[in-house]
């Protein structure tokens, strides 16, 4: 399982198999420029591979007024 947490919504989900950061964003319906993909405090570019056991934070990019 890959464990994914969405910020700021706080929603959690699990993915059964390895994929890329791009694939994850697509699955969440997000564009490559609309969220940060973070693993262990490190930013991942869309081509990076996500592995079973990873804890991923996807933080959508929105500014307040």
């Amino acid at each position, binding site marked *: 399982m890959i464990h994914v947490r969405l910020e700021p919504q706080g929603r959690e989900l699990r993915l059964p198999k390895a994929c890329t950061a791009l694939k994850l964003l697509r699955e969440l319906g997000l*564009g*490559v420029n609309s969220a940060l993909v973070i693993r262990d405090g490190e930013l991942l570019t869309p081509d990076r591979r996500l592995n079973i056991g990873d804890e991923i934070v996807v933080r959508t990019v*929105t500014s307040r007024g």
Partner: protein
Amino acid sequence: MKCRKCKALAAVALPSHNTAFCPDCYPVFVRSQVERAIHRHKMIAPGDRVLVAVSGGKDSLALTLLLHELGHDVHGLHVDLDIPGSSTDARAACEGFFAKLGLPFTVVELRREGLAIPLVKSRIKRPICSVCGKLKRHYFNKFALENGFSVLATGHNLDDEVSRLFANTMRWDASYLSDQGPVLPAADGFARKVKPMYRLTEFEIANFSFLRGIDHVIAGCPYSGRASFPVYKSLWSDLEGRMHGAKVQFYENFLRDGRPVFAAWAEHREDPLSPCTVCGYPTSAEVCGVCRIREMVRVESEAPRS
């Protein structure tokens, strides 16, 4: 992906610039974009005292850090809106950030002005976001003028600017189109306003804030749900996904070719400003917008509640 500059493993990919950067080189890229904007539009002169309008979000805090690192004399101002579940966190984020950098910081509390946003919202029928924006602009400008700041800087990014420009274009609002831009020169009763981050997207600033460990608030304003800007923002993000560089081109080409035309038109029909008869602030009406809001809140408060 590899960093364009040093070939290390990239942390941030930027399709619109057709490039990628590692965690060390990326902040340098962001700083150079801001430096270039300041230089190209002569935003800040040596010796300027810069007031930075800070909300607690990533954009305004990143702007503070960048201006400070570029050697400018910065002072932060936060307007506490008194919105439950939002304002306390926003204010704390600003206070913590300025304390950490050791930079001067001031808070204006709308509650003390009798204009706490929940109160205003309950008394006035107009959309609260526009009223709130008006109040913030008023107090930022007032503080800048009364305390001798020559420049007021805001954290507006390319997405903010493009969605605002697009909204104004949708309505062909010529008077807004005549003075939208990254620099508004000082005028009678108005401080010089600059937007040094206008060339950076929200995504680019979010990456910078993450890599530089900026502790900002993430949750949005609970009242901003129905603003029209998010619609335009998502439209533009789709467009940018298909046409890299569309945002910056739309905006820069407007500045070069569109704005001068509207500005020339506006010269003929500018309403002259005169001091507000209540508070002395410059306004095109007899009583300024903020005094009218204050009056509406007062009248509504005194009227029997139905």
